[in-house]
């Protein structure tokens, strides 16, 4: 072995990266820098706004303090309504997600065409945000909690069905075969062979989605779809910042509580 080869195999100085890795790292850095420059430059940012932002923020905080607790009784009912919207929306989504999941799972769908329909419905439901669904349902049913329930349900169906469909695709074939061997029809195989297997996933994701939905429902009022968001929006528009703080704290409490409850239930299941 020549001295050069020895030197290459046992270098005196430890280097973290080979030359090739260094080049790749620099290319990545350049790509990210380019992406940053492109995205920031095209947004034509008004830097003057940044100059006094901290003063504005402090001003806002000062106006919020102290919270106007007398507003609390007014928002108790809207808070309950918010939770109702989340719960009813999730319940409706749960009902519709089961057939949709069977339609969108490769091993239970009828044929390629129905599978494509199932997948398209999943993507459409999941891609549109709850609040945008809210816009649509407010246009249909008029403002109110009904539009909110529909919006939550429309968004959650795809979420639940996607995860359940994945669970169906991974279902143990042995149990399905066993049920089929007893002479069960397709529907019976689905109900007795597959459904019990995906039940933990179904319940777990439903509970998880419910706590996301409580958070989503807190802003549905902005587009007129009911719940606490309406009062938050009204208070902001009236510059009633002390009320805003009360509403924000209330939202914080219900979201944290629902998150804790959901985590507790999911912990019990698994």
């Amino acid at each position, binding site marked *: 072995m020549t001295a050069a080869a020895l030197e290459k195999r046992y270098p005196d100085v430890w280097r*973290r990266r080979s030359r090739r890795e260094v080049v790749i790292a620099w290319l990545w850095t350049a790509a*990210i820098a380019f*992406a*940053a420059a*492109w*995205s*920031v430059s*095209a*947004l034509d*940012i*008004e830097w003057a*706004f*940044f100059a006094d*932002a901290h003063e*504005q*923020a402090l001003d*806002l905080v000062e106006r919020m303090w102290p919270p106007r607790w007398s507003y609390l009784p007014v928002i108790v009912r809207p808070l*309950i*309504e918010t939770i*109702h*919207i989340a*719960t*009813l929306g999730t*319940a409706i989504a749960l009902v519709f997600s089961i057939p949709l999941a069977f339609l969108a799972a490769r091993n239970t769908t009828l044929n390629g065409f129905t599978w494509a329909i199932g997948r398209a419905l999943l*993507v*459409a439901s*999941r*891609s*549109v*945000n709850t*609040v*945008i669904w809210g*816009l*649509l349902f407010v*246009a*249909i*049913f*008029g403002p*109110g*909690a*009904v539009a909110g*329930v529909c919006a939550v349900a429309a968004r959650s169906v795809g979420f639940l069905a996607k995860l359940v469909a994945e669970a169906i695709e991974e279902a143990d074939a042995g149990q399905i075969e066993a049920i089929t061997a007893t002479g069960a029809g397709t529907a019976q195989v689905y109900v*007795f062979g597959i459904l019990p297997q995906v*039940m933990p996933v179904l319940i777990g994701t439903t509970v998880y989605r419910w706590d996301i939905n409580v*958070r*989503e429902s*807190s*802003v549905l009022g*902005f*587009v007129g779809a*009911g719940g606490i968001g309406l009062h*938050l929006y009204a208070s*902001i528009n009236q510059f009633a910042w002390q009320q805003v703080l009360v509403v*924000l704290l209330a*939202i*914080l409490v219900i*979201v*944290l509580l629902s*998150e804790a409850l959901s985590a507790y239930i999911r912990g019990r299941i698994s």
Partner: protein
Amino acid sequence: MSIAAVYPTTWRRPPLFGSLARQRIAIAAAVGYLVWSVSDLNVDYARILAGFPRAIDIFVKMFPPDFARWQLLTNGMIESVQMALAATLVGVVLSIPIALAAARNLAPRPLYLAARGLIVGGRTLHEIIIAIFFVKLFGFGPVAGLLTLAFASAIFLGKMLAEDIENVRVGPVEAVRATGAGFGQTVVYSIVPQVLSRAVGVIIYRLDANVRHSTVIGIVGAGGIGQTLSASFSRYDYDFAAAILLSIVALVALGEWFSDWVRRKLR
């Protein structure tokens, strides 16, 4: 005990909640809640019935989707993507100190608690609520949206990264520390290599999430395609709204596919 009781000849499906009594209680509670919540919401059934013909009407007006104003559409979409991209980058930068402070094995106790408090509080409030405040502070437009998404991303990435840092293997950390490395060197040479690949996956996931959120925060005036969509809805411009909705679905599906692809490659 009779044999029939031990080995029954007919099979009964096992109850879902442990025992039959508990299952009945659970079902009764669910039905009770359903009745209470529906009656509590003051549902106006006449209005719901009136809604169905209106839904069909809106649906008919949505077809065919109007792509004639594609310039407005593409401008909004590009703005959304830019917002998402810039917000992810800013979020990554901001998340590093949050993650270091929120990792139990690195940060001193008071700092750890403060960072965890920030994460819990920041995650609770919906992006739209945060967007309202940034709109108040920075005026209407994409800057407010960018800052909203950056804030939300920093909190989310900070949380995920902190968990990864807490699960780091101690051996390499101790080895680097034993060479006399300071805090910064320990982080760079022992923790970063261990969390990097997972972190890249989470960042790509967050980019995808930001694209999705960027389509909605425009509703409160924070820029992006949401602003265009909200305007078209309030003008009953349903065929244009349909075009925007289809574009959003396409963009989000594309983003999700990209994020899945990258994360599969990383694994």
